[in-house]
């Protein structure tokens, strides 16, 4: 056994106020109205969701707004079975990349709407390529969790 030495228990609490800017204010305000907005790049024509102020690849302003239907296809997923700082809900839950119809990037969110408490049952339901639809919260505050999850269609 190694000798026990003293430790200092300390904490840092720092409040922040992060600016959304014009593009993300509009995107998050849209969630209150059950609308998912993307923007189209004038150069490469990709529809980016969530909406962006500029195309990350072409480096040009993207000011054409596109309303994206809250339906798409499952691209990747993982069953999270541990608690972590900032988690969106109590585990277990399923994080997922979803390709929303008419868009060109994958949207990161949750899938749900079926019994996921039992791991073996849950993994039998989830299949890459399955069709999904946004399920909205009744209490929408312009937050990414205004979409509760995407459920199988």
């Amino acid at each position, binding site marked *: 056994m190694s000798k026990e030495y003293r430790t200092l228990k300390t904490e840092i609490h720092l409040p922040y106020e992060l600016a959304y800017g014009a593009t993300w204010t509009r995107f998050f305000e849209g969630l209150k109205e059950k609308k998912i907005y993307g923007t189209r790049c004038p150069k490469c024509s990709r529809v980016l969701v969530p909406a962006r102020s500029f195309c990350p690849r072409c480096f040009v302003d993207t000011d054409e707004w596109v309303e994206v239907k809250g339906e798409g296809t499952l691209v990747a997923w993982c069953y999270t079975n541990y608690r972590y700082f900032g988690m969106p809900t109590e585990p277990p839950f399923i*994080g997922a990349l979803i390709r929303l119809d008419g868009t060109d990037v994958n949207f990161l969110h949750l899938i749900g709407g079926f019994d996921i408490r039992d791991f073996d049952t849950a993994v039998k339901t989830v299949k890459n390529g399955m069709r999904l639809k946004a399920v909205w919260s009744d209490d929408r505050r312009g937050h990414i969790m205004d979409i509760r999850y995407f459920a199988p269609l």
Partner: protein
Amino acid sequence: MGRAVAIIGVGQTHHGRRMDVSYPDLVREAVVRVFEDTGLSPEDIDGVVSGTMPSMMEGIALTHFYFAEAMQAVGKPILKTETCGSTGVSIAHTAFYWVSSGLADIVLAVGHEKMNEGNSQATMTTVAEPFYQRYFISGAPGVFSMQSQMWTARYGISEEKIRDAAAFVSVTHHDDAFDNPYAHVKVKVSMDDVKNARVITYPIRLLDVCPNSDGACAVIFASEEAAKRIGRKAAWVKGVGYRGEEYFFGDSDKVVWESAIQAARQAYDQAGIKDPRKELDVAEVYNPFTYQEMLFYECFGFCDFGTSPDLVLKGTFTRRGELPCDPSGGVLCTNPIGATGLIRVAEAAMQVTGRAGDHQIPGAKLALAHAMGGVDQFNGIMILGSNL
């Protein structure tokens, strides 16, 4: 390429849960060992490069100032390089660029982390975008699990095969760690232990994941003239590569993973490597997750996409295989993140200079060191060889 650059010595702490030392004393342990290894003194050093994970890990900002004495950096130029998980390789690149440019002859690079002093999962969460993505990345494992799931689904790798291959990777690296005096986790695990371990973020299970480690690593880089003057067997930098991608997880493909592919290609081009599996003698691949290690084999051209699990199960990447990977036990058994990439570089240097002790790959002359950082965003490579 600029001037030729050599690694002339390395020093590592005994990694693990190190609540027996303060953070500066932990850093000093590695720095003392690199001076012992090389026979150099602090006055021989022209400049110091330091790096770590975000300040939230230990709650102390700008630790290169905190460690000025421990790294013997007082009175010298000092640089800090920070690229999340790939920090250690980025520190090595910074030191390499500094010496290669001709503006320094001998540079000390130090990577360090004390993950057990804070909340590592929360710290890694702060790397992700705050308005939208942070909620869903599940610390670090969620992202890597989604990537792994996407990879196995795309190439139709069966559940049975991938679990066997992941378990094989875990068992062999846990065995390897017993021959590495500095490794953190030293436990014997069986295939069944790994396959039946608790799900953390499916498909990742407990024994597919690295530990939280405390540790530091120090490496001395020297110009050709300085290396020859000092006269020890050196590891020569043959190539470096680094690539980044978009910040958002979802904006780029993480299976045919361009940052990993292109970083390797850049380093191979510089080193003149055409067939990495044949030409490399050993690789220290950044492997905090078993599944991701196999994906890296494919991105680095060790084999075709979708085929690494088959080769893993044939033993191609074990210590007695065609291309031994992570004979140190790798990141899976030791992960003080800010030091981890530099440990890969140090281990590669030890291999090509014949100083890797009980986990030496006999006759190793050409080695690859790698690290990955961010939300699957960055990859860095350094190739080391025993000949100039």
